[in-house]
């Protein structure tokens, strides 16, 4: 939920990266962390297993700049992608202002994408949100791999409401900031409506 603090002249928003296991959610955050000046971001907190799979969430605060005299801070979260962590995913969606769905472009992950997207819609609903109404971006990740589904086919299968679709290679940073920008823009535009 967006929080506007008049005393500290700050506005805080929450963005959640969602998607199937190993699709690159944490890699998105890691890239943003690595390529942002330390003064513009906080620590990257990763609650992960010993094998570096996300256990609960990753979290990183990021300051983008000033709008109308207010510092804009985005709290970026990822969810654990593995199917059996569903209870955790639900919790992380609480108070969300914008969602990025990171799809894995590999052919063999198509079913996992569809299942995860369905799970996102269901979990948003359980928190009182409607995917069709919240700021939302679809990222097609891993575009550098060989066995990938054509972007237009992926979009045809996964796009829900004419949301921005961004092709990405999160490991090299391609499309990572475009994705963040697309969702942040929608979140800030929502504020205009109140």
């Amino acid at each position, binding site marked *: *939920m967006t*929080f506007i603090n*008049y005393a*500290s002249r700050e506005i805080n928003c929450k963005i959640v990266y969602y998607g199937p296991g190993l699709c690159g959610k944490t890699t998105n955050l890691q890239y943003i962390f690595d390529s942002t000046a330390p003064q513009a971001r906080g620590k990257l*907190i990763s609650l992960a297993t010993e094998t570096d799979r996300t256990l609960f969430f990753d979290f990183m*605060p990021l300051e983008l700049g000033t709008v109308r005299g207010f510092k*804009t801070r985005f709290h970026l979260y990822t969810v654990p992608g593995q199917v059996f962590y569903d209870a955790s995913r639900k*919790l992380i969606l609480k108070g969300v202002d914008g969602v990025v769905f990171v799809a894995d472009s590999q052919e063999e992950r198509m079913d996992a994408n569809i299942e995860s997207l369905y799970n996102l819609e269901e979990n948003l609903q359980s928190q009182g949100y409607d995917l069709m*109404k919240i700021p939302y971006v679809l990222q097609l990740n891993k575009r550098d791999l060989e066995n990938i589904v054509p972007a237009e086919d992926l979009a045809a299968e996964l796009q829900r409401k004419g949301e921005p679709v961004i092709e990405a290679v999160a490991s090299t940073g391609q499309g990572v900031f475009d994705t963040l920008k697309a969702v942040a823009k929608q979140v800030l535009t929502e504020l205009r409506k*109140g």
Partner: protein
Amino acid sequence: MADTPILLREQQYHRIKAVLARLRMDSSAKVVFLVDKDGQEIAAQGEVGNLDTTSLASLAAGNVAATGGMAQLIGEKEFPTLSHEGEKESIHISVVGRLLLVVVFDDRSSLGLVKLRSKQVSHQLAAIFEEIVAEDYDVDSPFAGITDEDIDSLFS
């Protein structure tokens, strides 16, 4: 549609800070801070120094959310307080409606004292926050007139 934004005005912010300052003094705590259940820090008071309160706020909310999930699985509504005792530093978290009151303390204080004092101020904090959420967002939000150029300027 995402939730309606919460506006925290200066006067309310200073009232919250005053309550937290009092709590900090009465409980001999190091740091006291108030966090929204979604993990947003609202105000902090005390020896903040190098303490990363933003991360702490997010983790405290995650902690309460996770234990709340466990509570529901065993048929409880929620666990209203959580305590973590370390060798030197300890944390006590109490759920106050949709807020979390987080107290960081060391051996200058005790868990019993922190619990007691936290409970005593919780209704004051809940009352202030009720006023905050009752406010109409549309009234004079600085963002009601935000332009595309304003937004684009963040990314240029």
